[in-house]
């Protein structure tokens, strides 16, 4: 057991950011080879560092050191990537002027909630879980996986009052993949690609090719990596967007 884990935290962070003098690095390395608890604490310090970077909680100097460390550390880059894929964080935003005044913010929030309650019409809710078997690359062993298929509804367009009409999708534990079926005939022939973004952020989080099922119905196949939120699937013909579909992702127990 470590006597005082707290006294190690800043030392471990400096080590991970490659800011420790050589002698200090060697001392810590030698110590974590001897002490299993210190090794675990080092891994935890690494996790915290990556999570604080993602949440925009590092100071400017720490951020600079973190970015610099990722240049020479495939490990840090990989772990950041894994973190983003498994638990993406919404980008940190500066508060808008009206949000700085809390009574205005509360009033605005109430209005937004009321407007969402009034406008979010969920009228398609067809979900089925179909277990299937996938083969692990390079090995013959099979591992069970679960796919959740959801039918996105038509028209899937933004209403005149800026509200969305979409499909609510509840994802049960163990689901690895989502198949979003698009309404037959809703996608022009020749439209081949899609992008997915959250409704409150224009930057796409996923993109890929539109596939067809046996009934020639268009579908979008994505890994179950998105956090709960409202999303927009945009279908492209070449570079031009031709259709939008909305869905709300939630996790169910």
């Amino acid at each position, binding site marked *: 057991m470590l006597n005082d884990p707290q006294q190690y935290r800043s030392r471990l962070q400096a080590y991970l950011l490659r800011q420790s003098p050589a002698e200090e690095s060697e001392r810590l390395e030698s110590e974590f080879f001897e002490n299993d608890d210190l090794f675990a604490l080092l891994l935890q310090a690494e996790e915290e560092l990556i999570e604080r970077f993602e949440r925009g909680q590092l100071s400017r100097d720490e951020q600079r050191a973190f970015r610099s460390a990722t240049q020479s550390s495939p490990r840090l880059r990989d772990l950041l990537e894994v973190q983003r894929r498994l638990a993406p964080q919404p980008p940190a935003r500066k508060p808008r002027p009206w949000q700085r005044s809390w009574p205005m913010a509360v009033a605005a929030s109430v209005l937004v909630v009321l407007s969402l309650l009034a406008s979010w019409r969920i009228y398609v809710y067809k979900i089925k879980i179909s277990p299937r078997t996938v083969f692990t690359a390079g090995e013959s062993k099979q591992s069970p996986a679960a796919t959740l298929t959801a039918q996105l509804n038509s028209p899937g367009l933004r209403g005149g009052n800026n509200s969305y009409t979409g499909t609510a999708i509840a994802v049960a534990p163990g689901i690895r993949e989502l198949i979003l079926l698009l309404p037959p005939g809703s996608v022009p022939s020749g439209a081949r690609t899609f992008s997915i973004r959250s409704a409150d952020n224009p*930057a796409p989080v996923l993109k890929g090719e539109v596939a067809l099922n046996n009934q020639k119905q268009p579908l979008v196949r994505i890994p179950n990596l998105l956090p709960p939120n409202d999303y927009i699937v945009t279908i492209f013909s070449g570079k031009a967007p031709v259709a939008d579909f909305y869905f709300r992702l939630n996790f169910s127990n």
Partner: protein
Amino acid sequence: MTQKTFSAYDLLLGAFAPQPEDAAYLLQLQWEKLVAFLEFKGAGIVEGEQLADKVMDIATRRLQEGESIANIRAFLYETARYVWLNHYRKTKRTQRWFDQYEYWSKLKVLGAQNEELEPVQVKCYQQCLHGLDTADHDLLAEYTSGNTQTRLALAERKHMTRNSLTVRINRMRSALRKCYAECLKKEGCIKNLV
């Protein structure tokens, strides 16, 4: 870890603890420390595992030759430092830069938050996540999206210490990262695995 002959493996185990079960756990943990140490120094996941095997092979050979190693952990650390320095000097710097350039030019490795992924990256992540068994996938997802408090509660629920859970998660992430790197290489996105 590479397979070793029965007697060599026994010698290595014996250097860690008298009880085989304890020794096997400690050997695995020390190997993971070696990989992490080599990665902290700048090795990639595949390179780190290969070099960690090399360190273990050196320790085994010394034991087979009859050398007595008083502190196996200190020996492994010193040997790992030597192996890394040797490897770093031998690896042509220009080649390492070239590998990194290739890696960065074709993939969205560390872009802005919410940057879209290339389809090949999505495919590889999907394939590698499928490769984890369901329990591991769920544990990794729950751990990753949690915080200090929820992770403590998770460890309790799984009847593990917080530190054991951390080490187990590190093992899963390493498997995922290795699978991902190998998939990208198979897809022709990476020239050499680092």
